[in-house]
Structure formats: C-alpha cells, structure tokens
C-alpha cells in the first residue's frame, strides 16, 4: 500500500513528540520530589502508537494500558494536560487522581487506561459493542503487551469479540519482555498473532518499528471492522528499550540486544527515509525536533507551575 507523504510526516511528528516526552521524563522522574509513583515509558515503541493512531479517525476509540504515553500523544492528547497529570497536579487531565499510570482522556476518545494487565481487552469489547449497537462508523482499538496474552481476559475478550463480529482491533505490542520475562520464557506460542486462529479471526504480524507498516495494517483491520468483518489481532514486533519502569536496572536484558534494537530506532528510520526520498529536508527534520522539544519544555513548565489539588478534592469525582 502506498502511504501518503502527509501521513508519513504526521507519524514522524507524533513519534518525535513522544520520544521527547519520554526523554524528558527519564530525567524528571529521577529528580527528587518532582514526580511520584512508578515511571513506565514507551521509548522505542513509538511507531506502534503513531502508526495505529494515524489510521484512525477522531471518533475511533482507543483503550490503552500502563505503557500509554505514546498512544495518547499520537491520538492527540494535550501534552500539557498529560504532563500535569504525570506530575499529579490539579491541572492534569484527571486532576491528580490518576497520575502517570491510568491517564484517561475521553475528550480525544481515549476514555480509560487500565494498568491491570489484560484489563484493557474486555473493556474494548464493550466499547466496540456500543459502536456496533449504535451503528456508528467507528472502531475501537485496544493496546496491550505480549504479557497480557497470558491472562484469561485476553482469551475471553477475543472469543466474544469474534463471536459477535465486533468492530475492534486488538493491537499487541510485543516488546520482547513482560516485566523481567523474555517472550519465550512466558509462552511457547511462537507469535502472539498465532493465537488469533483459536478465535476465528485474522492474526497479522507487523514490523512494529516501522510506522508506515503499522499504519497500513491498521487501516486494513479498521476497514474490515467497519465492513462488519469483525475483529483483527495485530501483533506489532517492537522492543522495550528501557526497563519495565525507570527503577528497573535491566540486568536481565542483554546489552547487545538493546544495542541492536537501538539501531532499529523507528524515529531515525522514518526520518531518514523521508529525508532521502525528499519528502522533507534535513533542516525540516531538525525543526520538528526542536519544535517537539519546545512543546515538551512548555508542558513541563505548565506542570511544574501548576498547583497540587487540595487534600479534600480527594472526595470528589467518585459517583456521577
């Protein structure tokens, strides 16, 4: 499939933005007193968020997991609101209730994030059911990791979605690790995509470090869902360049493996492609980088200058 220049540029941009966002958090989360809680980053996996979201329309819904920043930014979340939530500030997208782990941005159709591994899958089924029920021209995308495919919720969700031919695209980000476990230490199934067979849906393997490939596969799965063809399981092969979280010393991840995957960096790869094919100039690429840096710096400034919520705000927002 021919991917338009415009789409390619859009994907490059959201990837650059995501990476700058993560890079700043690498430092900030280690700075005493700035950001509470765990810090789970998507460094290296940007092509999945950007490729998938570039294929979606605004009305399409995403349901995501603990490693969500690149999904949300690619779907169009406001970096300031996200950063302020990561800082647990009152101005954050969830008023400090969520913090970095459960960012909910319903205004861009990213209504909930589950940090319970496998939690996003059954919810996506329900969200897609509502789209089918209301005959909407929209689909739901569910992001999850390879580890989540070992949870019962994965299997129940895929079976039901297939049975009812729901408009959902299951996007597995196989980043080689689930916590400290390598993929082949947690399952004997060679590829997650293979599991689709058990539930009567197509399973496709995608180069998860190449945004245009992810984009093309998503477009196809989305169209199939809209046409009433039911769900697709997409497995994006990628790599978790950093630890599970930022306090993880990565002692179980071979150094040369990390190095090899750094060489497959999805951002420099697409950037190089676009420069070499003349879609953008080297100067334009530089400009994108510095613009993203500025946006992230502004988001950090906004977050840092924002107040914390008042203690008693804790009691708000429980019931509708």
């Amino acid at each position, binding site marked *: 499939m021919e991917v338009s220049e415009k789409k390619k540029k859009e994907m490059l941009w959201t990837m650059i933005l995501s990476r700058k966002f993560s890079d700043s958090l690498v430092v900030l989360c280690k700075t005493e007193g700035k950001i*509470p*809680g*765990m810090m789970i980053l998507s460094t290296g996996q940007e092509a999945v968020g950007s490729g998938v979201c570039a294929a979606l329309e605004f009305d399409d819904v995403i349901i995501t997991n603990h490693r969500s920043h690149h999904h949300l930014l690619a779907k169009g979340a406001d970096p300031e609101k996200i950063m302020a939530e990561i800082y*647990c*500030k009152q101005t954050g997208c969830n*008023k*400090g*209730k*969520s*913090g*970095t*782990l*459960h960012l909910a941005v319903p205004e861009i159709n990213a209504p909930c994030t*589950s*940090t*319970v*591994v*496998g*939690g996003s899958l059954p919810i996506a089924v329900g969200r897609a059911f509502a789209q089918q029920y209301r005959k909407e021209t929209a689909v739901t995308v569910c992001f999850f990791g390879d*580890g*989540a495919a*070992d*949870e*019962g*919720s994965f299997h129940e969700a895929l079976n039901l979605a297939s049975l009812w031919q729901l408009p959902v695209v299951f996007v597995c980000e196989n980043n080689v690790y*689930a*916590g*400290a*476990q390598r993929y082949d*230490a*947690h*399952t004997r199934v060679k590829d997650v995509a293979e599991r689709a067979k058990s539930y009567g849906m197509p399973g496709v393997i995608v180069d998860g470090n190449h945004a245009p490939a992810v984009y093309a596969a998503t477009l196809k799965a989305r169209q199939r869902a809209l046409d009433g063809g039911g769900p697709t399981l997409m497995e994006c092969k990628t790599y978790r360049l950093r*630890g*599970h*979280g930022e*306090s*993880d*010393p990565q*002692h*179980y991840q071979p150094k040369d493996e990390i190095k090899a995957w750094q060489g497959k960096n999805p951002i420099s790869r697409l950037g190089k492609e676009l420069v070499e094919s003349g879609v953008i100039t080297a100067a334009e690429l530089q400009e994108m980088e510095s613009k993203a840096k500025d946006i992230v710096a502004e988001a950090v400034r906004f977050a840092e200058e924002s107040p*914390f*919520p*008042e*203690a*008693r*705000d*804790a*009691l708000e927002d*429980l019931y509708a």
Partner: protein
Amino acid sequence: MQKLGLGQAVNQALREEMHRDPNVFIAGEGVGVGIHDNPVFPTFGLLEAFGPERVKDTPVSEAAIAGLAVGAAEAGLRPVIEIMFNPFFTLASDMIVNHAAKLRYLSGGKSSFPLVVRIKSGAGFGAGCQHSHNLEAWAAHCPGLKVVMPATSADAKGLLKSAIRDDNPVIFIEHMGLYFAEMPVPEDDYLIPLGKAEIKRPGKDLTVVTWSGMLGVAMKAAEKLSQENIETEIVDLRTLTPLDKDTILASVKKTGRLIVLHEATRTGGFGGEIAAVVMEQGFKYLKAPLRRVTGPDIPVPASPPLEKFFIPDEDNLIQAAREIL
C-alpha cells in the same frame, strides 16, 4: 539482634521453611528473576538458593497461579504464591474464594489445601488505586481462609512460618511500606501462632485495635497522648481471621474505650466487624461510643496531597481519641 525490613523477614522465613520442608515451593510473577534487584524485596536471592524447580517464575496469569497453588496443595505440596499488588487479588480470587476456601468443606473434611497467598499491599507509593487497594476485609469475609497481616518484621517471620505449616489456605498480606523499615528479628527458628493478637503497648485509658502498616501510626499517637497522661493500649491484631476476640475484649474491659484503626476504606471494612464483636460481647465495658479511624470511602488517589489525605495519620487518631475521652 539482626535488623530486617519486613520483606527481608519474609525472605528469611521462606528460606528456613524451604530448607526444612522439600514440599514448600514458591511461584509468582518475578519471584525468581524480577524487575527489582534489591535485597529489601521478599524473594530476593531465592532462585539462586533453591533453583528453578522450587522458585517458579510464572507468566502474568493470576488465575493460573492461584489454581496451581490449589491443585498442588491438595497433592500435599505447600505452595507459597505471590500476588504482586493487592488489587490483582481479584484476578486470582475465583481460585481462592470459590475453591481454596471451600473445597475442604465440600469434601466433608477429607481434603486439605495447605497454601499461602502472599500479597503485597498498602498505599503510600503514589501508584494510584489499581496498585493500592487494601482488600483484607474481602478475604476475611470468606470462611475457610485465614487472613494474616503482620505489622513488624519479627511477627512477619514467625507468622509466615506458621502459615506455611498450617493445613489451611492462608492469605498473608504484607504492607510494602514496612519493607523499608528495619526492625529487630530473632535469628532462631520460631513460630507465632495464627489467631493470636499481641498487646504492642499497654495502657489503661483507651484501646486501639489495629494491624499492618497502621501499627506505626498508633504507636506515634500513643506517644503523644502519653505526654498528656493518656495511656493508650495498642492491640496489634496480626491475624484477622481467626479473630482473637479474647484479647480485644480483655483490653476493652480494662480501658472502657475503643478505637479501631485501619488503612483500608471504611464501609464494609474489618473495623466494623471488631465494632460488632465489642457491641455484642463487651457493650457493658464501654464508657463511650467506639470509633473507627480508617481510609475514606474512595479509591486511593495518586497525587501526594490526596494520597496523604487518604491514609489515616496520628492526628486523625488523636482527634478520635479526644472525642471519646
């Protein structure tokens, strides 16, 4: 005496029991090779010491981990499984609540299920409510389970060893805040019986019944109240079920005043059970209405000022004490 965090005390208990009884094995997510490389965590170094036959790293599959324990326990092994954070107990709960707790009864007393479910728990890490949710009252509501919640490292060691040797399913909940507090732990092989509370501080004016991470809060408040000549007796429950009613009632008889303190949320919390026991069996001792000091009825929020508001502190306890003194 050696000084250990609660996780290290758990580690010592696991080592001693695994040496003593070849039927003991552990299983869970990252119990062998984990994302932490830190000796304060409970399973640190066990893979090296006991090998992969007895230290089983599992996929992210809580239902299967819990079922593994149930099946293996019936065969006479003594599994100790780990649930990484208390909220993920819900994924394991079918096997624990509908099976571990009931199958012995269903067998007419013929089968038994000697297993331990270790659960890491507690607020205070800014991780938010899908990682911090104290569900001990849920477990305590299931006849057939024993629920243990140590507040000190020494208790953790002795209680875990008893739990492993117990022929029933035991839910053993560890407050992660206590992993980082070094406390004295006897070096020898000792057991602390399940179902026995301990008076952690004697007093004559007021009883505080508490457990787990809240013991520290109770001790600090008692220290402050003591400066005003108010002497607080602190009952550390250690085991929620079976409940040591005798120790609670004896203390209330002595002081005539009761506050129950727990981090878990209020409505349906285990404090209500203690209140009911005292109303039924110790009403005549009470000189004032009893009080509960608990987390408010909300999920644990991530933001530091909100999370601080959630977790009961000394001031909350002292205020409740003043209301009934």
